[in-house]
């Protein structure tokens, strides 16, 4: 088990190194010079040159890559070209919205999907299954911003249970913060839950057809006992994969939802930074997201090993 974890960790570090290089190169070759963009089209050539020197853009690419990477390792992500504030601070502020939102949404989606998937699998082909599958079809098809608008219409404008948008900050208290994130989390969670339900159901149905489920029934387990004791853990493996993918998506992919609810999250930050050619912010946010995705994958790999003894023994 330890060796398995070490191996996965090694591959995590390698992936991060490769990713940082790729991100740096891609952002470098993208057209548009931040200095001339910041100063406008009428700027003097020597003013642009002075700003380039100040931003460190006149250094060679290798030097800039190294200083970027070593800076990040020390927690220094550089200074935003547009806002002239440390990138680390900007990201940290936004992360405190995006991370809780992603976790909240994922928790909701899992809480919906597990019971719904198990229910549908246990009643395969009957009314309950068809109802669940119909609902998931809808959930997959309808875009989350439409859900978001409906939620605002119903719960914010008509019922007035929640605010229509904005985020008071965690200083206002955990309760207030969670309250503000509830509608966005639901809007994000519903389509994810629909996908996860389908994965859970089909994983369970695959397992229900396995020989060892028949062995379990031959021992005297009821259908339900066999499902819970032998089916669920085996079905977890594909489900974990999807949960890992969904978390990465929720962290970065919430731009539209952040826009609808006017939340100061990472998605909006990166969107603004791209429009402003704030390369250093773009690089850092993308690097952070890559870090998150790779870390989540690492955790999913560890979770596999916890679920499946065959992985534990195979080094």
């Amino acid at each position, binding site marked *: 088990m330890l060796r398995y974890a070490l191996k996965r960790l090694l591959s995590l570090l390698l992936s991060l190194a490769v990713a940082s290089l790729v991100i740096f190169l891609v952002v470098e070759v993208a057209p548009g010079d931040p200095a001339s963009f910041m100063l406008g089209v009428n700027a003097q050539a020597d003013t642009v040159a002075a700003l380039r020197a100040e931003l460190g853009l006149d250094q060679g690419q290798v030097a800039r890559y190294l200083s970027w990477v070593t800076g990040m390792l020390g927690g220094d992500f550089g200074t935003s070209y547009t806002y002239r504030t440390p990138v680390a601070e900007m990201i940290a502020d936004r992360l405190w919205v995006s991370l809780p939102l992603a976790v909240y949404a994922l928790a909701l989606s899992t809480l919906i999907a597990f019971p719904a998937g198990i229910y549908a699998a246990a009643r395969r082909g009957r009314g309950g299954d068809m109802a669940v599958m119909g609902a998931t079809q809808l959930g997959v098809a309808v875009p989350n911003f439409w859900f978001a608008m409906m939620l605002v219409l119903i719960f914010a404008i008509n019922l007035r249970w929640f605010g229509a948008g904005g985020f008071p900050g965690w200083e206002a208290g955990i309760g207030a913060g969670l309250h503000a994130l509830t509608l966005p989390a639901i809007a994000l969670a519903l389509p994810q839950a629909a996908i996860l339900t389908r994965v859970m159901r089909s994983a369970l149905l695959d397992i229900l057809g396995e020989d*060892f489920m028949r062995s379990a029934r031959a021992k005297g387990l009821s259908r339900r006992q066999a499902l819970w004791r032998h089916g669920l853990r085996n079905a977890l493996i594909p489900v974990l994969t999807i949960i890992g993918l969904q978390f990465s998506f929720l962290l970065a992919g919430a731009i539209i939802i952040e826009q609808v609810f006017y939340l100061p999250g990472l998605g909006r930050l990166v969107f603004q930074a791209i429009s402003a050619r704030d390369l250093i912010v773009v690089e850092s946010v993308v690097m952070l997201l890559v870090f998150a995705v790779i870390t989540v994958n690492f955790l999913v790999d560890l979770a596999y090993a916890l679920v499946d003894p065959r992985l534990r023994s195979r080094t």
Partner: protein
Amino acid sequence: MTLLDITNLSLKIGGLSVLRDVSLTVDPGEVVAVTGESGSGKSMTALAVMQLLPERARTKGYVTLEGTQLLEQSEAQMCAIRGRSVGMVFQEPMTALNPLKTIGEQVMETILIHQAMPRAEAEVRTCEVLERVGLPQDRFPLSRYPHELSGGQRQRVVIAMAIALRPRLLIADEPTTALDVTTQAQILELLKDLVQEYGMGLLIITHDLAVVADLADRIVVMRHGEVVETGQTQWLLRNMRHPYTRMLFAASNHQVTLPDTPAQHPLLEVRGAVRDYKTPRESLFGKPGRYRAVNNVSFTLHRGERLGLVGESGCGKSTLTRAILGLEPLQEGEIRLAGTAVTPDLKSAIRQKMQVVFQDPYGSFNPRHRVARLVSEPFHLLDDAPTGSARADLIAETLTAVGLEPEDGQKYIHQFSGGQRQRIAIARALITRPELIIFDEAVSALDVSVRARILDLMAELCSAYDLSYLFISHDLSVVRTITDRCLVMQRGEIVEQGATEEIFANPRHPYTQQLIAAAPVLPEIPEQNAHSQQA
């Protein structure tokens, strides 16, 4: 008193009638074997006793276990009966155990689910049961996972699960079909001992008549969902009233006559072949280990010769086959086909001289292509592949040669039975007139009657096309009739080779002797029965 009494059991799934008026009985301490070919309903009969039938199944008739009408029990009542009064062992030990739970947990579950005893006692009983089925605690502690055990050991765990509460009746559905002959012999011995020791009734389902004849007190022969004949084993073997029973026994022991082998010209030469696999690293930065799957194998297959290769699973047969086909490189030694070295970068002109027929007639065809296209697949190896009417003629001729109609070329593969598919596979191998055909367990998945006809076909083709082939199989009785010479492989090495008849009649190597002794044999069938049928 009768333990299990099945009377006029009928079963329909959807509109399809699967069982019709099946009646049989099992007494305590008695071994009753249900036999028949696939689709005969033997497994469904077993599942009907367990009431583990597919959801849409409808049953009629009586299944009585010690006076209890099983068909009238509620699902909850059946749960109390399964595992406690009736245990069941299945065919596929590799998948019959939950891969995520230890063998201890899984055996103990039978005891705990029926609340037969407190947990501490259940653990002691679990150890005893595992010990009894031949898995002693010092080598197989309760904390072992299924993937750490071999197929035979897993089947022992499955048996332990089934007998943990000493049920009155044990049902075994093809319990040894997936196992090697030596393992099969051990598992059958174990089942026989358990029946005696516990006084259980054993209902064993098997297609293998040699097993049946060896083990059973009574035989029930089924066909198309009906019982065609039943009787005490010795009596039934002597009398065999029903033509189907006679056909079944004759087909199991089917003999073919091969044409004489021509003068010896080497076709396939294997010299000192070694195939190593890398095993996982011992430490993070250590060197990967090596596993020698094929060790210094040498043999020659002559033109027109039919050579057999036998050995148990894991002995290296498949690895050797892949090397001969030029799919994997050798680490040492060489393989030459008609004088040309065989390597993974083999020219297609050479590759075309070798074709292969695989075991699984269901998995080895693309379901979306018509048979004509499937059969003509090897043409892509030819630079001057026939086109137009020449191509169509050749396809038609080859299909006819394997006993199909030329029109069959327009059909899709799902329209054919397993035996017909294997004929198509042979046609595909034959169409380029290869010098060598490799039959890799090519008849192992077939019913005995179908197998007999495919063996006949092979013998015919030997005369018509002067075939040379390498016939790889774990089934000794088939190898004995369909090959001239034979290689016996164990742990990557050829331990014995020689004329097939000579090896079977007079095995010299201890491993060969062990294999032949372990293989169950059909009793002699009285003469008047043997020839009165057509396979």
